């Protein structure tokens, strides 16, 4: 492998929201993303996994430059995202959203939907648009007979292909896919995943893939970051995450993947408590109320630090901290 060049980098990025708890009570601070540092290298597929409310979509919005961080830096090719011209950034980073039913304008034809980026960027004239739209539709496997159709006339899978065509028509470098297949049927999901894999190869794309479906992430991602309540609690290459999960939360997530193997039955995830309220997160390690390796007096008092492991992975858990090794051994961790 040659030298890896980072395309997208976040350094200690934090984003908070003010949330009203009621008419008369004071607004509360919700830390949606809390000190996230990530690096996405060129050609990588970074899978971002976590439960709803963990902040993965907020992070995606910041990567797209749609939302400024409160603190920390997001850099694209070394330049701060917020300093890059809005249009320029939109050309180089593009999103694909979950629901192709709501991400396409129902009053516009498929041609208009796909050609919009060309209009916005003032590229060429109408005849060039038609050629480019036809090209990209062929690339994503849509027949050009749909050019004058409306989104409502297309199936879910076809609409997602339109969304992909629109994202790719300006030849972006990075595509942020936010749950690209979770609204689709299994047989359509596999077609879209195959397409994403092909496009990555053909266009040399870099993906950030946000998904709660770990099987999908395992299949496409080269690196995986596990998010819990606004923090990245574990990061590693896909092999490492799935073969040797370190953080107890990652292990619980992997256990809850239901593979089609009838003899295995329904797994017990040991995540007793419900997902905590993000407005009022638990002290220190935010995972401690649900953790089976909870160490009293440690996990609920001292926040764990990111610990780089010898295989290049990172886990944010006291179990891997030499300082507390004795305690971890004593509690059977």
């Amino acid at each position: 492998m040659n030298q890896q060049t980072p395309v997208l980098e976040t350094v200690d990025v934090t984003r908070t929201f003010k949330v009203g708890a009621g008419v008369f009570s004071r607004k509360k601070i919700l830390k949606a993303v809390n000190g996230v540092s990530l690096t996405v290298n060129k050609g990588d597929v970074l899978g971002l996994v976590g439960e709803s409310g963990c902040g993965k979509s907020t992070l995606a919005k910041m990567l797209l430059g749609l939302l400024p961080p409160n603190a920390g830096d997001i850099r694209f090719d070394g330049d701060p995202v917020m300093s890059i011209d809005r249009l320029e950034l939109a050309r180089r980073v593009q999103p694909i959203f979950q629901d192709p039913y709501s991400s396409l304008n129902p009053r516009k034809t498929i041609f208009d939907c796909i050609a919009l980026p060309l209009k916005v960027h003032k590229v060429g004239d109408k005849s060039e648009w038609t050629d480019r739209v036809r090209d990209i539709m062929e690339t994503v496997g849509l027949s050009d007979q749909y050019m004058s159709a409306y989104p409502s006339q297309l199936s879910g899978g076809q609409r997602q292909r339109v969304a992909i065509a629109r994202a790719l028509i300006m030849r972006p470098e990075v595509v942020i896919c936010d749950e690209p297949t979770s609204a689709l049927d299994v047989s359509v999901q596999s077609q879209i995943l195959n397409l994403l894999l092909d496009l990555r190869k053909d266009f040399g794309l870099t993906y950030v893939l946000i998904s709660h479906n770990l099987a999908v992430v395992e299949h496409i991602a080269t690196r995986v970051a596990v998010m819990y309540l606004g923090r990245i609690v574990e990061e590693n290459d896909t092999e490492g995450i799935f073969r040797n999960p370190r953080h107890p939360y990652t292990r619980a997530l992997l256990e809850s993947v239901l593979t089609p193997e009838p003899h295995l039955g329904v797994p017990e995830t040991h995540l007793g408590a419900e997902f905590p309220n993000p407005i009022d997160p638990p002290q220190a390690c935010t995972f401690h109320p649900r953790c089976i390796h909870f160490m009293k007096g440690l996990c609920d008092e001292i926040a764990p630090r990111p610990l780089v492991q010898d295989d290049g992975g990172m886990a944010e858990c006291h179990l891997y901290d030499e300082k507390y090794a004795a305690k971890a051994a004593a509690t059977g961790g």
Partner: protein
Amino acid sequence: MSVLLEVQDLNVDIPLSSGILHPVQKLTFHVDKGETLCIVGESGCGKSLTSLALMDLLPKRASRTGTKLELAGMNLLTASNREMSDIRGNRMGMIFQEPMSSLNPAFTIGNQMEEAMLRHRDVSRKEARERAIYLLEKVGITGARGRLGQYPHQLSGGLRQRVMIAMTLMCGPDLIIADEPTTALDVTIQAQILLLLKELQREFGMGLILITHDLGVVARMADRVCVMYAGQIVEQGTAEEVFGDPMHPYTRGLIDCIPVPGKTKRGEHLGSIPGMVPSLVGAFQGCHFRDRCPHAHDRCAPDPIHLNWIGEGRGYRCVLSPEETRRAGELEAAE
């Protein structure tokens, strides 16, 4: 085991301006006491209409016909509306996908749970309340007594689904129909809810019909499986049979479509099923899957394809003989 629900040749017809839509065609299956039957299929295959047809909750225009629909000996086909509403929520309960839209936002949890029991049983409100608290604890909700006064919007998605389950259990039903009960939930919560359903089923000996599109859920939950495609059951058998030795090309196609960590090769193409589901308006000739099937030939139309029974409760809807279909499966795997 004794049969709890028996369904024979169940049809649902919906008149449209362009003709009659046949979303459910000649469904025949049964559920034993304490058994889990999974109905699996993609959107539009008729699985949700099947569940509504069983509950007699179909939209007004739709009509339901069949030769047999019996729950524990009661004939549901001839039951009046009055009789059906005595059975619904009492002998058979239903859990829907979105607990927020199936709970009434204007009433407290306690109120709605007690209502279910007061409607069907001769009990006092106090007794109903005690039963509600007992069941909320059973489904793993802490501080059950305090929860009774809460409104649905005050609960998280997972908690709401637990409340839904507890509410369904109020009258101790014989059969629960769960339509995509975990699709709106996170994976970790999904596993918890499924485990809860299994445990409750074991404890109360209920039959469970689980309707889902997720093959993983089916494999882990089902005793027996019905695979539906375009309004028909195309394959049925035990979970081991259907996943270990799938006989219908559609079932094999579906199984090949899903990535399985450790089994499918990372970054390589997954299987796919080309083409689209056919329209079910008007009369349909031959095999519904033939336009998408890699093994389609002249025999697949125009005669209707019947379920090919190859064992007790084990069948598939295809013209290929068991030997031919196994060979076809090997060919697909080699590709």
